[in-house]
């Protein structure tokens, strides 16, 4: 692999460029009109304009991206996260064009992208799944019948959904009946697939995921877990590892289940197996993300590994260079996601950043995509930076995180920095036993 085209933007494009540079691999950025002045465009060795700002015309424009790869002679494409990263058709097209797709086989992306298929494969492999429907529920009566069997509350989900989109909690049959048609309609519109299913809704759940890596020789390792329960609108805001909720025995079982999941599909590349863990530490497969994850730096800072480097090596056909026994939690790591949004309502806040000054401190890593005078446009995701902090202990990491985020200056747009500070200072967070209900419960009872 000599030249990698990055079919993405912002902080993740910069992150990938960084490892490519250190491994003497050339990089090609692609960009929309809205991004022409962004740091990632400058930092790549070459940059190709692919279209106007809306993503269907630029970052989801497969023909323009393939054309850019051919014109620049890129022999591999890294899809980053989001956008085309979990698009089976794109991965297949890249391979058909004789270009290396940095990720798993297209079939695996397809299997894991369809939540019902993924559930079936995991069940067969002996990975626990949330009790729920085996097949697509084509009528509201089918859905109501399965829900009655498993018991309310249930989660009604689109099989093609993910990332917090296409799902709804239903407390009773009336709310299920009300939600069914509209959710199905939205699934058709967003994903072009309106298969629906229901799962038992786990109350006060923990969202814990396991990083895995697999090579072309059948080796699958886990790189330990990440605790991702601090979420708003089903999207993560803070991740940390090791999870303060898990004991050693549960951790080992969880990580082994993730390896089993990876082996069941012959996974190649880095990927993440997401689990729901209930209050009694029972865990269930939720979904598999067949790509590099936003929060991958938590694992990197905890273990000392470079996940992008592993991706490049695996895509080059090399075996994974480490053994399971060498994967160790060397430090506690926390990632804070800085979003351009209102810190109270969490509504997007696009605009021009007038001053941008991230903290420069020991044990603090900044992965960002903007600078002073960057215009944060309404076209893309609101995440503008990630702050990754490490410590010998969780307490030390939290103290450093507070210090770091207090020294992060961003003016001109609203950001969630005040909210991140409140989370880090919250007793319930500091105790370490928090669930995905944390943000809601805190809003209802902020005095702690």
């Amino acid at each position, binding site marked *: 692999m000599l030249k990698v085209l990055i079919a993405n933007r912002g902080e993740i494009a910069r992150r990938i460029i960084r490892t490519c540079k250190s491994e003497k691999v050339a990089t090609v950025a692609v960009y929309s009109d809205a991004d022409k002045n962004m740091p990632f465009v400058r930092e790549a060795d070459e940059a190709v304009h692919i279209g106007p700002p809306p993503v269907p015309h630029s970052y989801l424009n497969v023909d323009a991206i393939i054309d850019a790869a051919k014109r620049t002679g890129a022999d591999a494409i890294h899809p980053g996260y989001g956008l085309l990263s979990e698009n089976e058709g794109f991965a297949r097209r890249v391979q058909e064009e004789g270009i290396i797709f940095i990720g798993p086989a297209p079939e695996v992306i397809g299997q894991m992208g369809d939540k019902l298929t993924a559930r079936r494969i995991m069940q067969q492999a002996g990975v626990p799944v949330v009790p729920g429907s085996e097949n697509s529920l084509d009528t509201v009566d089918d859905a109501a019948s399965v829900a009655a069997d498993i018991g309310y509350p249930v989660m009604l989900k689109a099989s093609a959904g993910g990332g917090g989109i296409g799902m709804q909690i239903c407390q009773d049959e009336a709310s299920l009946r009300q939600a069914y048609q509209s959710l199905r309609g939205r699934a058709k519109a967003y994903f072009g697939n309106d298969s629906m299913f229901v799962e038992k809704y786990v109350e006060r759940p923990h969202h814990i995921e396991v990083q895995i890596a697999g090579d072309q020789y059948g080796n699958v390792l886990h790189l330990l877990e990440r605790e991702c329960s601090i979420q708003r609108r089903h999207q993560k805001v803070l991740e940390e590892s090791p999870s303060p909720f898990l004991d050693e025995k549960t951790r080992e079982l969880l990580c082994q289940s993730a390896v089993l999941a990876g082996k069941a599909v012959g996974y190649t590349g880095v990927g993440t197996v997401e689990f729901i863990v209930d209050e009694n530490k029972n865990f269930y497969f939720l979904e598999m993300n067949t790509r590099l994850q936003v929060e991958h730096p938590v694992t990197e800072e905890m273990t000392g590994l470079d996940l992008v480097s592993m991706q490049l090596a695996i895509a080059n056909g090399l075996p994974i260079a480490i053994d399971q026994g060498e994967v160790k939690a060397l430090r506690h790591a926390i990632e804070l996601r800085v979003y*351009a*949004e*209102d810190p109270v*309502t969490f*509504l*997007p*806040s*696009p*605009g021009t950043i007038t001053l941008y000054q991230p903290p420069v401190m020991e044990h603090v890593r900044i992965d960002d995509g903007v600078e002073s005078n960057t215009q944060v446009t*309404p*076209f*893309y*995701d*609101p995440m503008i930076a990630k702050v990754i902090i490490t410590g010998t202990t969780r307490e030390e990491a939290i103290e450093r995180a507070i210090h770091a985020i207090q020294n992060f200056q961003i003016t001109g747009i609203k950001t969630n920095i005040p909210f991140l500070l409140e989370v880090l200072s919250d007793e319930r967070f500091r105790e370490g036993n928090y669930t995905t209900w944390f943000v809601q419960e805190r809003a209802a009872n902020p005095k702690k």
Partner: protein
Amino acid sequence: MKQVAANMAGTVINVLVQVGDEISAGQDVVVLESMKMEVPVQAEVAGKVVEVKANIGDFVNEGDILVSVE
């Protein structure tokens, strides 16, 4: 006269009311889209719509008036 203002900066993707409509407090009047998120804007008070300033495709800033109600 009461006004319904944009709760965030974004693009108007749907206008749900017309001049002359009687609306109730809490009713969705406009849908905005920004950063991959669709957000409905609700009327805070009931009344009759006397002016609709928002057009589909417009970019509005937080606080911009979308609809006037009497």
